[in-house]
């Protein structure tokens, strides 16, 4: 009996909750779909928390372009069917002005068409190139391209004279996308991938996999993952005596992973947003003020390290705000055009320059090559790294 009582209450509250329409003039309704729980929780969790924090702060200062923000946040749990249902709900019922998210590429690709059909701006926090290629006029992404990260890694490898590598990637969308980009770019840099394995994101020990790398005599290997298991790979590699340079992806962008891997993480090289090394950036750096502000407010509020993933939500809101200001109002088509025309917007992931054919906005310079030294992220310096 209690169960049906709870269910009845939930039915009532959901029916009441979705009845509101957007008040004209003084509020802007923004929808957000994040994977707060589920397989991509380490992406969606920080993203959701970041957005909630920033919306509150923005509203205290008058909102975006003078409009108070009303945030409708949905947890898709990385399920595409939920993302689809929520996207339709947000667009058709809640009539949101724009949607921020989803956290994963798989979900974004499923709702790309829905956002376009519903003429609602979608600012995805996922990275797949297919999100903005082919370009859909209302669909943008704020996460950097995997292909750029792969190329930065290969450039570094060339400088180090490496030509024979291993590639490990996790069985998630992020891992798969990275794997494709690495495989595509490698021949162009004259680098051969002699060992190529996909591992489970919930793997508990990867000694056998790194043993296989060792047997292939790789000169270095790339570990492309956004999951905690990437730290296990690093540990196991050092434990079996595989002492070659380890390259990670920008999925390593959370100091928690470096802490988890402990001393094994020393010397790992990876491209990532400058958010991770914000404190040590030179005083004149364009991004420094934005990065420090986000980092400090996130860490003060949530008592956990800021990660680059949460930064995507920050950038999405920032870009939307700038577009609304530029368009001078809440006309969807005008804001979309304004968004497309934004140049030189300084976010956490880099400096955004959108255009009609580039809805991703970030270039190779969005990344800074970084490494782990004494358990901290520092900018990677070729000279310093020579042993």
């Amino acid at each position: 009996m209690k169960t049906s009582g709870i269910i009845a209450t939930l039915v009532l509250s959901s029916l009441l909750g979705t009845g509101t329409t957007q008040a004209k003039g003084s509020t802007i309704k923004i929808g957000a779909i994040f994977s707060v729980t589920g397989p991509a929780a380490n992406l969606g969790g920080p993203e959701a928390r970041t957005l909630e924090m920033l919306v509150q702060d923005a509203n205290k200062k008058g909102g975006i372009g003078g409009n108070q923000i009303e945030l409708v946040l949905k947890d898709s749990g990385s399920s595409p069917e939920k993302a689809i249902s929520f996207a339709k709900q947000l667009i058709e019922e809640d009539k949101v002005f724009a949607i921020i998210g989803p956290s994963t590429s798989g979900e974004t690709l499923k709702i790309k068409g829905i956002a376009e059909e519903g003429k609602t701006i979608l600012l995805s926090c996922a990275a797949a190139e297919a999100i903005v290629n082919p370009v859909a006029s209302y669909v943008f992404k704020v996460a950097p391209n995997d292909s750029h990260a792969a190329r930065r890694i290969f450039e570094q490898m060339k400088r180090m004279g490496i030509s024979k590598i291993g590639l490990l990637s996790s069985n998630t969308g992020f891992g798969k996308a990275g794997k494709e980009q690495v495989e595509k770019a490698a021949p162009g840099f004259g680098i051969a991938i002699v060992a190529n394995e996909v591992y489970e994101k919930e793997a508990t020990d990867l000694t056998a996999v790194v043993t296989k790398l060792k047997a292939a005599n790789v000169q270095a290997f790339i570990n492309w993952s956004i999951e905690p298991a990437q730290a296990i790979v690093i540990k196991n590699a050092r434990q079996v005596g595989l002492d070659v340079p380890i390259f990670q992806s920008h999925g390593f962008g959370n100091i928690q992973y470096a802490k988890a891997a402990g001393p094994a993480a020393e010397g790992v090289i990876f491209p990532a947003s400058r958010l991770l090394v914000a404190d040590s950036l030179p005083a004149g750096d364009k991004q420094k003020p934005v990065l420090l502000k986000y980092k400090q407010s996130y860490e003060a509020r949530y008592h956990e390290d800021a990660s680059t993933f949460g930064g995507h939500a920050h950038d999405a809101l920032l870009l939307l705000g700038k577009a609304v200001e530029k368009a001078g109002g809440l006309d969807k088509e005008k804001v979309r055009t304004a968004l497309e025309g934004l140049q030189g917007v300084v976010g956490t992931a880099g400096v955004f320059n959108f255009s009609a054919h580039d809805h991703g906005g970030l270039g190779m310079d969005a990344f800074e090559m970084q490494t782990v030294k004494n358990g901290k992220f520092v900018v990677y310096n070729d000279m310093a790294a020579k042993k």
Partner: protein
Amino acid sequence: MSLDLLFQYLVAGITYGTIYAIVAIGFNIIYNTTGIINFAQGEFVMLGGMIGVTLHAFLPMPVAIAGAVAATMLVGALIEMLFIRWLRRPSVLRLIIITIGLSIAIRELALLLWGEGVRALPYFTGTAVTSLSVGDVHISPQVLWVLGISAVMVAALNFFFARTLLGRQMRACACNREAAQLCGISAKNMVTLSFVLSAGIGALAGCVISPITYVQYDSGSSLALKGFTVAILGGLGNSMAAVVAGLLLGTLESFSIWVMPAAYKDVIAISILLLILFVRPSGLFGNAEAARLKDY
């Protein structure tokens, strides 16, 4: 494949296998006393690790681990008393579904309490990079801890069931519940005790493996699946066989990576499970000849 490489794969296999075997032993203890397969067994391992890390923040490691084990045993007892004890003649289906529900509830509670991040206890000896080497074969000291503590646990359990009064009472209950009750053994208490014991074993395992594997709120489910694959492989209820089966499965998985994409490692484990269920559901050691191995 060189001899060194062979041994390195073997070491990896033994690492996985011991972890699975510990979870399987937990299943077997409860199964023997109650006939229940406890789908929440993996969650006991997860809780042990999580609580251990939380306590370690302000207690020395051995005390933190002891605390985690005690706390998880309490959880095990509570689960049994609140959810299982008062059921009258429950069907197998009903019990399976109850433990599934419990596993989900505990997982969500862990998410609420600890968030989605990963945690680990520090390595008991050395760090994440230390390893002992014999030739080109490396093994992390933590793996030796896992092996050692597992061996001690198995020996302690053997002693408990063979020599102590309580252990013998539990075995009596497992053999024939009514007869045991006629002898004055409280079957209900034996059931609670089996949950407490399983929870404790799981928690200790969780603490010891956390430096290697990390614990996260949802670590329990994948461990549970492997755990009962091993339990069934060895023969449900036979914990010594579970150890052998665990090592076997771990080694098979490890060597499979040599020939197959690592992405399908779990598919191998489950295919073995299905094969055993179709061909020989009593497990590798589940027949009369091997009955003498079955102590608990």
